[in-house]
């Protein structure tokens, strides 16, 4: 287990589509642990995708349960291998920022509710329906797996200095 440095744009890995993980083996498990360690270490992050720590495989972790916006509506710590959104509903706009694009935020329209299919850390196939902030966070992290940054989806930009909040 290790906290890994967050890759920052223009690091080319952030713009590459990631590869499907064929086997939930020890190496995939180690990647998930690194993602969790890195997310926890940042203190304020609610999700990290593999390319953000320099690994081009389809894995993300999301946990909005400790954030003000997600605390009342979440699935706790989600570890996702090969996640895929299989249904989306409604729209919801939030001003998003990203650790890989520091000091910049933009208004992004996402689905309000999504159904996500993925393999979890134990190798189990899971399907969850999620809404609100957790749904936004998942869509943001899944975009990273396709080489997309929130800058590819913004309708307006604002410069902003992130406040380091718990």
């Amino acid at each position, binding site marked *: 287990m290790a906290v890994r440095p967050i890759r920052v744009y223009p690091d080319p890995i952030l713009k590459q589509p990631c590869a499907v993980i064929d086997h939930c083996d020890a190496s995939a498990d180690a990647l998930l642990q690194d993602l969790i360690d890195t997310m926890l270490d940042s203190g*304020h*992050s*609610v*999700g990290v995708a593999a390319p953000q720590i320099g690994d081009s495989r389809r894995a993300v972790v999301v946990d909005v349960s400790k*954030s003000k*916006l997600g605390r009342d509506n979440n699935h706790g710590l989600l570890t996702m291998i090969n996640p895929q959104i299989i249904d989306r509903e409604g729209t919801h706009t*939030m*001003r*998003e*920022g*990203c*650790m890989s694009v520091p000091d910049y*935020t933009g*208004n992004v329209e996402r689905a309000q509710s999504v159904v996500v299919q993925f393999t979890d850390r134990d190798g189990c196939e899971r399907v969850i329906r999620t809404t609100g*902030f957790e749904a*936004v*966070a998942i869509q*943001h*992290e899944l975009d990273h797996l396709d080489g997309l940054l*929130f800058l590819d989806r913004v309708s307006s930009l*604002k*410069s*902003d*200095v*992130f*406040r380091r909040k718990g």
Partner: protein
Amino acid sequence: MQHFALTIIGRDRPGIVSQVTEILYRTGCNIADSSCSILGGQFAMILIIAHSEIADRDGFCGAFLPLEETGLSVFLRTLKPGGEKHPHMEGEICLISVYGSDKPGIVYRVSRELGERQVNITDLNTKLIGTEQRPVYVMMLEAVLPPTMEIDEISRIMNNLKNELQVDISVRSITPVEL
């Protein structure tokens, strides 16, 4: 690097941005920050520019004169050190939208309530819409609350103004989420 604030305004037409940025490019200026928009029939450009050698306005030696000659107004302000840096602001960010039939003092009354409470307006747009007979005023502003102030408090204050001004006002949080 010396930084300058450059504002340019003039009757809108195609080609203003390229005319301005060609001069900046040829003089060796960097555009650090900018916002440009059409207001009424005028195109307005506000830019923070930087130059590694030019230290004051005279250093530009009339580089912007060709703009004036095509009917644009140009204003250049030399920034004090650090004047180009975005200040660090701690509090919640909210978007306040105000709309209703046009009457004098809408912007003033709303901004006075905010200013008196140290709420910092960071973005403001207003527009007159509707028909000539029934004009409607729309104002959208973004503001950073002082660290101790909650959104509810500003909502309450704006609610009181609603009755006084007979307009609709809504307040919502737009504090960015870092993902």
